């Protein structure tokens, strides 16, 4: 697999959230606003890219890999937990509002299945550069997925779109035009499942349609 395919597979074909259904718990919890989703994406991007790179560097050293193999999962956890703690400290210092908003879901990145999954399934068996690209693609795929959920949830639930801090788009004119109020349910847990389910259904429908078209073409061409 070339670097381009390696990068883009995480965004579409093997999207961790919409295709593999990994890391759903924090994703649904932090998507109440676009800003939260963006902050989470940055945190996961930093952790996933660097953990993939470091774990690949460790496992590509033959001598070191042999010693690490029996304790590889604790090693992965130590590396990931260190990176997550760095994210937590930096976020607390420089973006305190986001830090308090994301709350417990920042330290929970340590046990996010996507990160440990990529470490074991990809980084441990591949070269450092390929692992770094895989991490970047997966993190971006995850980020795009939670950001798309958050756009729907924040718009439908509050009528706004919080980009960052005070930078907020007020889209309430849509609701004013329709003479209805924003639907608060969408920023509550039930709204998270509903939005996720609807987006997943749409993606599955598009994918199935595409598959059927391909199958038809193959059949027609003999």
């Amino acid at each position, binding site marked *: 697999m070339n670097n381009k395919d390696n990068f883009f597979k995480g965004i579409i074909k093997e999207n961790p959230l919409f295709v593999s259904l990994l890391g759903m718990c924090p994703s649904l919890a932090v998507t109440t606003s676009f800003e939260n989703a963006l902050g989470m994406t940055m945190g996961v991007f930093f952790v996933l890219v660097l953990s993939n790179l470091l774990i690949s560097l*460790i496992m590509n050293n033959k*001598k*070191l890999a*042999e*010693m*690490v*193999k*029996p*304790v590889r999962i*604790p*090693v992965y956890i*130590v*590396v990931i*937990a*260190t990176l997550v*703690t*760095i994210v937590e*400290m*930096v976020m*607390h*210092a*420089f973006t*305190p509002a986001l830090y308090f908003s994301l709350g417990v879901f920042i330290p929970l990145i340590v046990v996010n299945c996507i990160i440990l999954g990529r470490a074991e399934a990809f980084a441990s068996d591949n070269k450092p550069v390929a692992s770094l690209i895989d991490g970047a693609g997966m993190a971006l795929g995850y980020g795009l997925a939670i950001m798309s959920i958050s756009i729907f949830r924040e718009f439908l639930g509050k009528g706004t779109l919080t980009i960052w801090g005070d930078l907020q788009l007020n889209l309430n004119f849509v609701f004013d035009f329709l003479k209805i109020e924003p639907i608060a349910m969408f920023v*509550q847990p039930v709204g998270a499942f509903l939005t996720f389910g609807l987006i997943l259904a749409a993606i599955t429908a598009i994918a199935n349609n595409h598959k059927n078209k391909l199958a038809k073409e193959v059949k027609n061409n003999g």
Partner: protein
Amino acid sequence: MKNNGLVSGLVLLTIGLVCGILLSVVNYFTAPIIKEVEDAIKYAALEEFYTLANYDISEVSGEGDFGTIFIFKEKGTETINAIVYTVRAQGYSDSTKVEMLIAVNSDLTVEDYKVVSQQETTGFGADIVDNDFNVSVIDDLSGFDSVSGVTKTSNAIKTCFTLVGERIASDLGGGLNE
């Protein structure tokens, strides 16, 4: 090389040590900024009660349900003008207590109060944040106004006032070990 548990354990220990060193370096740079941020949040709340520039403010760590206690003395004097208590009590949420700042003047009048942390039921408990509980003197809660439908949370707020009322006289008389 024949691997045994000891070698693997030592490698894990070494990696752990390297990570520990890395974290202490990051902590060295971020800890002062985090302290500044936390102080700013705390003092922004206090600024709503008093003009901070007029006072010398000292802090004492509270015990039990009390967090930091802020002692306000008029600049250049040793007389306590007011005390702001950080106090917690159990509300509706099992996991997180309701936390308040209660500012009491030396004549026992309540200057102001603010709920600074709570995880009560959204849409109900959250009503308490800006509610006026009708408490003007700390040792007289006879006129306390509960929020209807939010009994447990209202009781937690009342408990906070009661806890402060029980110790304020002693604290103003020099009971606080600064």
